[in-house]
């Protein structure tokens, strides 16, 4: 797994500090060229991975990369699925069953399943989950996706509901169908590690908020530091700057000090922020 991953929150109006800033970014990145320009800055600085949500607009980026194979000869995507708002909004608008139907390619199969009642339904949930994963992966066709993540809203919803088997279904399908490593994004790291271990997912890739402020680290910063140091998994740190609440040098120094952290994902909306963050991570990674 690469040390530095370039994230995409900033491109889609996601900012954990300010709705105003989020909107300004959404307006700026309405032009796909703006996104590509920043992706190019990241790529040319040596960042080889774009970790991105399966947002509809990512399909445009995928198409661009596909059509310039030499330019992006070593670029990899780490897709994060699903783009949960797409589903949540559809459930609100159409109801759960109708929403599912809309996202499944084989509509006939699903209708039969609902009509068929309980016994058929429970048996086919796993097949349905695989179809949904495939639908999300369509946009990455022909591109390298060595790690595929389950997005935190879904990971944490399943975790909370106690649908533990779902992690196994996701992991197995991603391995078998895409020859990729499964990854899990969560806001509840210690709890998730227990469950992944329970369902036999060994040495999992888990991406979680890890920052000096303890911001959105459920279970507390002390417990996070302890599990990172002691448990067998491959941690990826996200929200290391806590949306800008921590000074960059201090933020990166804190994360790099924890030797078990494999990778750091960050998003930035300016060339200078990308280059500075990259430089800081390089500096503290070597210093260790």
């Amino acid at each position, binding site marked *: 797994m690469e040390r530095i991953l370039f994230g995409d929150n900033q491109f*889609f*109006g*996601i*900012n*954990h*500090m*300010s*709705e105003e800033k*989020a*909107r300004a970014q*959404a307006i700026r990145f309405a032009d796909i060229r703006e996104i590509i320009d920043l992706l190019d800055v990241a790529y040319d600085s040596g960042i080889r991975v774009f970790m991105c949500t399966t947002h509809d607009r990512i399909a445009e980026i995928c198409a661009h990369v596909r059509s310039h194979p030499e330019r992006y000869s070593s670029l990899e995507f780490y897709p994060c699925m699903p783009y949960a*708002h797409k589903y*949540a*909004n559809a*459930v*609100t*608008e*159409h*109801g*759960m*069953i*109708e929403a599912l139907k809309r996202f499944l390619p084989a509509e006939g199969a699903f209708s039969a399943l*609902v009509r068929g*009642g*309980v016994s058929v*339904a*429970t048996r086919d*949930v796993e097949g349905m989950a695989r179809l949904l994963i495939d639908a999300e992966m369509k946009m990455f066709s022909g591109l390298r996706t060595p790690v595929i993540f389950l997005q935190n*809203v879904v990971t*944490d*919803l399943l*975790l*909370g*509901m*106690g*649908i*533990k*088997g*779902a992690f196994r279904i996701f992991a197995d399908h991603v391995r078998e169908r895409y020859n990729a490593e499964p990854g899990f994004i969560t*806001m*509840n790291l210690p*709890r998730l590690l227990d469950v992944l271990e329970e369902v036999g997912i060994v040495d999992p890739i888990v991406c979680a908020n890890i920052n000096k*402020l*303890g*911001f*959105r680290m*459920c*279970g*507390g910063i002390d417990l996070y530091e302890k599990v990172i140091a002691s448990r067998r998994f491959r941690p990826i740190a996200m929200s290391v700057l*806590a*949306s800008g*609440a921590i000074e960059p040098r201090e933020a990166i120094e804190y994360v790099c000090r924890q030797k078990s952290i494999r990778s750091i994902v960050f998003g930035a909306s300016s060339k200078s922020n990308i280059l500075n963050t990259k430089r800081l991570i390089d500096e503290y990674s070597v210093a260790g």
Partner: protein
Amino acid sequence: MVNVGLIGLGKMGLSHLAIVNTHPAARLVGVCDAAGYVCSVLHKYTGIDVFSDYREMLDNKPLDAVVIATPSRFHGEMVREALLRGLHVFCEKPFCLDVADGLELAELAERKGVVNQVGYHNRFVGAFNEAKRLLDAQALGRIHHVRAEAYGPVVLRPKGATWRARGGEGGGCLYDYACHAIDIVNYLVGRPDAVSGTVLNRIFSRDVDDEVYATMHFADGMTGTIAANWSDDSSRRMSTQVALWGTNGRMVVDRQDVKTFIRAAAGSAAEAKEGWDVRHTTDFHRDVWFYLRGEEYSAQLDHFFRSIVEGRRENISSFASAVQTDCVVSAMLQNAGDAWRRVDSASTDPAQSRTGSGGLLSLVTGALR
């Protein structure tokens, strides 16, 4: 341990399920939904006992509390059944479509001495609570205007199959979105006495309003405006913002940050900074034991369970406070047909309206006298 039953497995129900299931003081013992398919899948993968009839669950499970997250038109009946069995009740918003129902149930809950709460989660957002702290400390001086706005993507096409598209079931932007804005106004500065100029517009929906605009009038001469639109997909999720103007300055608050402009030499007792000051959610974020979509969803259920365990009766978002929001919603509904008149929020309180005669029209004109 608090034994909990959950009724309704829609979007909020699933979210509550995950949060209840992980709470250290709660044990989820039963789940109920009319959709057999969803229940059977849930049972298969979690082993939780599932029911299609909520009364069966209430009668057969040793419950201490219920969480109700069904379409709004069922709230009244289900809350009553739960209260009559002496259960603590957490009910999704809006509380009751009929204000009379809501008032009666708030009273019943009080009599039964049970914890009662409605899911107005903005009351558990750090930034809104910081705003409340500053307002209570008179940081802005005397408030003379408040503006609350709620925008987001729910109905974006001229069709809709769910209960949210049906007015009689608690659908519509007023019940779904505007009530959040109204409730946060009630929380921050108190309930308006009357409303006027209510506009309920349809954009895509056939039977319900997609946007809501109204003026609010408060006892001390303060005024306010509400704007809500659930057909706005320029933001990916619902965004609620409140702006307040006072004799000492201005404040703008949403779930992410609190911006204040405090006039120099204002002489306020509060420790707010002069001029513009912006503070972010990271400054007043409180740890929760489990995170899903936002701290506030966990924090509100934590408040509910703690109140039960500690025997606390006062609640940040009680039935009684939610009925106040229902009263304003009801006043807006009355006012919408005749928007140039003012309608007293209190006039939708049936205890008062019964004293008058001649129904709705006399209420409206009575309010103008």
